[in-house]
């Protein structure tokens, strides 16, 4: 019984992992995009609007990537790589002093 359950998890695990990567990882990447655009040299409102509008494109692309990647591990890895520069920019935004 336990062996069967283990086999089921081995089979389902990567799929569940991909779904999580797509739904939550993709959203996280979109959020980072929407924050990172505030680092661009433009007015705050323009930057906010640019980030919001771009974020959905990023989200869709991230989901496609997650299911196109050869393995769940590579899917997460790709998301993490894409997140790094965005995270750096976002950190810079979060530390900006109030004008």
């Amino acid at each position: 019984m336990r062996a069967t359950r283990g086999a089921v998890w081995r089979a389902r695990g990567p799929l569940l992992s991909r779904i999580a990567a797509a739904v939550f990882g993709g959203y996280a990447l979109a959020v980072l995009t929407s924050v990172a655009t505030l680092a661009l040299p433009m007015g705050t409102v323009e930057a906010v609007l640019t980030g919001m509008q771009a974020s959905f494109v990023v989200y869709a692309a991230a989901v496609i990537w997650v299911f196109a990647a050869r393995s769940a591990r590579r899917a997460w890895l790709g998301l993490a790589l894409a997140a790094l520069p965005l995270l750096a920019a976002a950190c810079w935004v979060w530390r900006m002093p109030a004008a």
Partner: protein
Amino acid sequence: MLGLEDAGGMTTAARSLRQSMARLHTWTGLVFGWVLYAMFLTGAVSYFREEISQWMRPEVPALAQLPDAAVSAALAVASLQGLAPGASQWVIDLADERRNVVAASWRAGAGAGDGRAMLDPLSGKPLHARETTGGEFFYYFHFSLHYLPRVAARWLVGLATMFMLVAIVSGVITHKKIFTNFFTFRPGKGARSWLDAHNMLSVWALPFHLLITYTGLIALMTLYMPWGLDSAPDAAQARQSLRAEMTALMPPATPRGTAAPLPDVGAMVREAERRWGIGSVARLVVDHPGDAASRVKVARSEASRVSVSPRYLAFEGPQGSLRQVKDHSGPAAETRGVLYGLHMARFAGITVRWLYVIASLAGAAMVATGLVLWTVKRRARRGDPERAPAGRRWVERLNVAAIAGLPVAMAAFLWGNRLLPVALADRREWEIHLFFAVWALMLFHAGARPVQRAWTEQFGAAAVLCAALPLWNICVGGRHLFASIRAADWVYAGIESALLAAAALLAAMAMKTARRAGT
């Protein structure tokens, strides 16, 4: 898709990409298909929400001729002085080609609560018609559903929209033969035919689907993606400025506290029409009407431009001096204005508006054929429908109630508008309760009847309900189809003709499903 298309001559990597995309497409499509179908169908009719609202208020006569905007605005203001003198803000939406009333609403102030009224565009006097949500019901249901908390419902809708976006992109990747799909339809071949229909509907209107899905997300993006705004160094100020880039409707500033008469709004409307042209003013927003710090925004109509970015003149003080001309938006704000505008199609004339409706119906049909395909393919694989696994039986019945049951409920909503007593308390709500009660009944019916019969009966019921509405109006007299045509009331005649066309379409579906059940 899955096993139905040959993958010969492709590399392993390309094949596995297409396979995983196909799987993604199938399952996301199933999970959100029902919500998306309802969004497409109610969204389609929402392109005529003003016209539906007119039809649902038969007591309000058609406007033979549009009144002068300046006169109409001044009359509405005079009326509001009596209706809501202490309000902190009045919003006045003038009549236009699509709306035969002046819609006024106000925000609480000293000695007044929030409220709304419909005013006669010619006299400014309050109009009395049956209580109804009108076409607004379909419009709000389209993105806020009903009964659920608003934010939760909109997140659900957003999630479905996001999945739709993914389904579109993954669907495109799945279909290597996208241009062949354009012309391929092989009827009478079970799953193959459903797949062809699904592909054809998808590919025909693909640019529209992509546009409407992405712009739908843009429409509610401040809800779905607030994080950039929250992260702005001065978030409160940024929120204020962001809103000002999205709408002319801003909360009023603080009043001065000294009374002063409101200057003549007619002159303000004339000034706006001098700049933008006759008939270009859609809305007036009056802040603190009785105060020395009054402010009147005269906002430009969206009927003659694609973008919905706010454009207005702001007049201030007892002299009504022009203080602000909002005639410019930044590139990102204008992009949002155009995208949102493309979703709402307020710019559209009658031809483009119908194209929007047809494309949306094609969208609904695309989702519906996809949902049916899911069950047909599994039936083909497993054989005997009576011994189908419970999951598939559920999907089949939910498909019936979602696809054929919704038009029944929508027609019932219109019937409720005609049949519920005019004096009924909370009449507005009861029309909506009736819609959901009938939809629930359809779900029950789909569960109780053999599946093929349920399809036929529900499409048939929807067809009868739609066709009988114009007939009922002829029987009870008043504004029926022929009278409307004679009076050149094209809004009324248009709605009733559209009901007959919908009935014909639904009857054709009923006959189609009946024939399938017979074989």
